[in-house]
């Protein structure tokens, strides 16, 4: 197998060397396309990098990663879902971006030197996750029946009205002519235009529910985020402290004078429990 030739090739980490065709680095007799000349020393120079000169290694590895994703079942399902359920799939992508990537970035970013904004960061991350989840759940629940109804009209050709049926009939008629090879250039253009018009209409109808639910969904998201954060994630928004400037203003009129109760401070609490051990 060609991949083994690369796996056992220690030269990839050792810079430029000239390879012997019967090197011990290779356990297999078949090579990875590195040797062109089987007799004597090869003229190929292995650069030790995956990019540029070691073309066979680069192609095999690049292809393996991308092809593995593209040939996987989940990717096929995602592509199908994206076509059939535009709004829900878009919300799913948003869920990944806002529910995983955004919180990860927020938490990974360094804090301001003069501020302890760890709690704010956790709140912002929770906010992003909650909005992603609500967006996906609401979009999927509301738009899935609509998507199914669109499928019935456009693909299964049920419940069609007069105008839409007329478009479909014209397309079927012209397609028959095309298959028989009797279509004129003008009719061919008409068929092309009608097919495009049908596809555009389908996309338009599929996305109308997104515009209709846009406002109620945003209101619902705003309303649901605080309880979700509180009861699901256990995060609550910190009440903003009064800025230092404001505290100094009218101190004489300030009735809420702070109490000097040392028992509330964690260090002094231990004295109540019998002193520091």
């Amino acid at each position, binding site marked *: 197998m060609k991949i083994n030739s690369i796996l056992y090739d220690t030269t990839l980490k050792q810079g430029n060397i000239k390879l012997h065709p019967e090197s011990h680095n290779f356990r297999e007799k078949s090579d990875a396309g590195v040797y062109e000349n089987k007799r004597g020393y090869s003229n190929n120079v292995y650069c030790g990098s995956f990019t540029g000169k070691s073309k066979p290694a680069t192609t095999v590895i690049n292809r393996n990663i*991308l092809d593995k994703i593209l040939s996987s079942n989940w990717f096929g399902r995602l592509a199908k879902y994206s076509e059939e359920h535009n709004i829900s799939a*878009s919300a799913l*992508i948003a869920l990944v971006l806002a529910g995983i990537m955004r919180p990860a970035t*927020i938490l990974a970013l360094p804090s301001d030197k003069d501020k302890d904004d760890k709690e704010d960061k956790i709140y912002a991350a929770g906010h992003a996750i909650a909005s992603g989840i609500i967006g996906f759940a609401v979009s999927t629940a509301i738009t899935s029946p609509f998507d199914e109804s669109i499928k019935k009209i456009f693909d299964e050709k*049920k419940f*069609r009205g007069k105008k839409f049926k007329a478009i479909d009939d014209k397309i079927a008629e012209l397609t028959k002519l095309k298959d028989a090879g009797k279509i004129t250039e003008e009719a061919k253009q008409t068929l092309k235009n009608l097919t495009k*018009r049908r596809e555009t209409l389908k996309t*338009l109808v599929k996305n109308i529910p997104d515009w209709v639910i846009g406002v109620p969904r945003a*209101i619902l998201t705003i309303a649901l985020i605080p309880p979700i954060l509180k009861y699901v994630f256990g995060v609550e928004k910190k009440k903003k402290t009064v800025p230092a400037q404001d505290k100094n203003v009218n101190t004489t009129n300030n009735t809420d004078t702070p109490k000097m109760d040392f028992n509330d401070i964690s260090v002094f609490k231990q004295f109540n429990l019998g002193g520091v051990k």
Partner: protein
Amino acid sequence: MNLTVNNTFPKNYGYKNTNSQPLSARLAFTAKTPLPDEMVNKAMKEPSKFFKYFNEKYNKFTDFIAEKFTSKIVESESLLKLADKFKNSDNFYQHCLTIGSVITSGLYMQRTLTNDKLDKDRRNTLAVNQGLTLIVSTIGAYALDKYLKGWWDNVTARFAGHLVGDGKFYENYLKQKNDIKAANKKLIQAAKASGTKPELKSMPKVAKLVQNHNYYKTLLKTSEDDAKILMTKVKGMSPLRAMIVFGFVYRYFVPVVVTKPANMLCEKYLAHKKSKDEAAKMKG
């Protein structure tokens, strides 16, 4: 049930340790089922009574929506006209995504403008900030989408190659694409020399190549449903790109990268305005 255990040593026993092989490779089970295969397959395909009940109800509900709502929307003259107007647009789905974002951002702007807790200056500045962020990010999303289109088409061709089981599908697509690029280059040069507008050839479409592929043609004859699913997957790649790009810009890039500097600028502007107003008052 008959059970057969294959406990013979593999041929390369002396070379390889058998324990390193998976159990399934060392043991071979053969069992006789009491039911014919057809019955088992049929039973596996049929949903349970519980799901069957809900499926029927859901089906009736979607029929109702299709008949009473969706078919009427499809029939509306304004939508048919709109579809006719945008039928040649390559970015129609992107426009749909943008409209959705404009509606949501519009709601947030309206809430900002009617927020009693903020003073008038702050409300207006924040609303303008939100509007400008939306415009700039939308332009960025369109630009990124256009930039990635060529690469994504190649990925789609590769994906389609897997679906039709043709190892050379991708190479053929690339070859066609390069040929058209070269031809278009010549056409542009010729048009420059003659001073006319060149009629450029359009790039090959993956969906069309799949339609003309023998595998798809055979599948269409043997199983129309499978052929439709295959085509849906290929067509789904285009909206998937737009979803990823627009989602990345609106849901990741703007909140993480753009919002903070935009708010800082907003605060600076407000502070500058406040100091200017105070200076004017002092003078007055």
